[in-house]
């Protein structure tokens, strides 16, 4: 197929990608949007296979079939609670693929380019522009890959999900960056050393990715995941620049932009800047005002009596619900309450959980209709009229200290104002504080009742009461 025709088909694929993303903006059309986007991918792949450049299909066929099987099995098998880990792994595989494409581009000598890098047996000539884009795609791809693996390790608790930083972390990162830059410049000064230098850049990028994600702790995961998502797109985009392929640039930068927007939303929802998330973590340096008061525990039986009388109930899920796998009992209780005549909604803080929209997916899995899911601003507007707010494994996102205590490390973060509801139930295993390590004055509130124990068991006990 001629290059012009392929270019035309790439434009068609780009239109389909854009259209597919557009349809993703409503739950009603999202399934179709995803299908259109995957069709665009198919078109792009098929037309590439048909191009004149491709003369040998054996390797492609083997690798593609193996990859498709691995991907399909993983996608089938993963539990909805394991979604953040899965997305991290897919991000990583996209990143390493872009790194490899960038690396392979070293060997695509193209006589049309002006050669500034001398021909060597190791690497034929590529232009300076191509060389720079190759280095960028290796750098971003490498950081995405190793960073995603660390994120996966943290999410699956294979490694500690707490913020881990080496002594002299900043110094080491800086040193790493300087070494990366030096190697990249040397490629131009000493073209004969291209291959060893490129390998050095690969190794340094992988180390950089590990060092970038290690110091970031559990509750900041949504930011990290969306940032890595953005990187995986940018890596594809850089690889596209390196091999001079427009569809890679278009699709890659769409993904890059998507990730940056999500990152920004997550940061706003925590009232923190991106650099603050990446370089500091919630270190409670300022001593938050000590909260004193009496905690009022409640039994499942009494909780039932209050819920039974309530005419409006709001469920506020957090990471604890995911851990306890309580989404199904939450939905069951919600249905019983509705059958009892109460108005039930589910209020979701943007950073609840370990990835953007994590809670929405879990509730959707449990068959909670999406029109019952409400966002933070909507529920806060009418929270005074809510009879009971049920907090299920959420902590920091409902902590009134964010609103009132200027010394609190989470001061200024927008929260769901459950303390303004008439009654608040907090489902918790113990009095331990949330990820940020901040005391929660909510627990001592006049209208707060603590329902201690595993969220799933507590809710099951309440449901059993309803059924009697």
């Amino acid at each position, binding site marked *: 197929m001629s290059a012009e025709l392929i270019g035309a088909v790439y434009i068609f694929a780009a239109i389909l990608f854009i259209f597919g993303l557009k349809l993703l903006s409503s739950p009603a059309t999202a399934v179709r949007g995803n299908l259109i986007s995957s069709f665009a991918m198919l078109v792009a792949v098929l037309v590439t296979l048909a191009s004149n*450049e491709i003369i040998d299909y054996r390797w492609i066929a083997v690798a593609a079939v193996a990859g498709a099987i691995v991907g399909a099995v993983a996608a089938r098998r993963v539990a909805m609670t394991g979604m953040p880990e899965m997305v991290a792994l897919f991000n990583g595989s996209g990143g390493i693929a872009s790194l490899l*494409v960038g690396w*392979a581009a070293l060997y695509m000598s193209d006589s049309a380019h002006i050669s500034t890098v001398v021909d060597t047996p190791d690497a034929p000539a590529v232009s300076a522009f191509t060389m720079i884009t190759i280095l960028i795609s290796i750098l971003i791809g490498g950081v995405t890959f190793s960073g995603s693996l660390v994120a996966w390790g943290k999410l699956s608790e294979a490694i500690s999900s707490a913020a881990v930083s080496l002594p002299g972390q900043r110094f080491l990162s800086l040193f790493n960056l300087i070494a990366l830059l030096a190697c990249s410049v040397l490629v131009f000064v000493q073209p004969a050393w291209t291959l060893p230098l490129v390998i050095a850049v690969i190794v340094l990028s992988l180390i950089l990715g590990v060092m970038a994600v290690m110091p970031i702790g559990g509750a900041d995961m949504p930011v990290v995941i969306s940032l890595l998502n953005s990187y995986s797109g940018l890596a594809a985009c850089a690889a596209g*620049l390196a091999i001079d392929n427009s569809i890679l640039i278009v699709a890659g*930068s769409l993904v890059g932009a998507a990730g940056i927007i999500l990152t920004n939303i997550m940061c706003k929802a925590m009232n923190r800047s991106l650099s603050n998330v990446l370089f500091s973590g919630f270190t409670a340096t300022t001593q938050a005002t000590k909260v004193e008061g009496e905690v009022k525990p409640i039994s499942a039986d009494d909780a039932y009596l209050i819920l039974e009388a309530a005419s409006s109930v709001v469920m506020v899920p957090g990471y604890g619900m995911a851990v306890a796998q309580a989404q199904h009992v939450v939905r069951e209780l919600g249905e019983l309450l509705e059958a009892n005549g109460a108005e039930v909604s589910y209020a979701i803080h943007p950073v609840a959980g370990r990835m953007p*929209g994590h809670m*929405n997916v879990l509730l*959707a899995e449990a068959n909670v209709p999406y029109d019952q899911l409400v966002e933070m601003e909507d529920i806060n507007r009418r929270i005074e009229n809510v009879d009971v707010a049920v907090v299920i494994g959420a902590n920091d996102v409902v902590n009134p200290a964010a609103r009132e205590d200027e010394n609190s490390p989470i001061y200024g973060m927008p929260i769901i104002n459950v303390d303004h509801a008439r009654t608040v139930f907090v489902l918790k295993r113990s009095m331990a504080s949330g990820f940020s390590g901040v005391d929660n004055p909510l627990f001592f509130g006049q209208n707060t009742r603590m329902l201690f124990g595993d969220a799933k068991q507590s809710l099951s006990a309440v449901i059993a009461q309803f059924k009697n």
Partner: protein
Amino acid sequence: MTMEAVYLGFVLMLSIFLGFELISKVPATLHTPLMSGANAISGITVVGAITSAGAGLSDWATVLGAIAVFFAMVNVVGGYMVTDRMLGMFKKKEAPVKDQV
């Protein structure tokens, strides 16, 4: 080469703007599927991988390309399938069943 860089720069810039326009309208409910769907699109790098693996370049480029095809396919197939699975769960409330009132 300079014109080419300028042209690619244009494509890059316009797609980034377009991406911002498209994505900022997606509601919070769909952020996870959006992310995994967008991530699947980043597997477009498979197109570049195919070229490296099949264009009869040096052996080394072929091997690198083949490994890249493998990982990119994991990303593409896994990403689209898992997104589809998730989106399939987002349901509207079925027709009113509250006839006990």
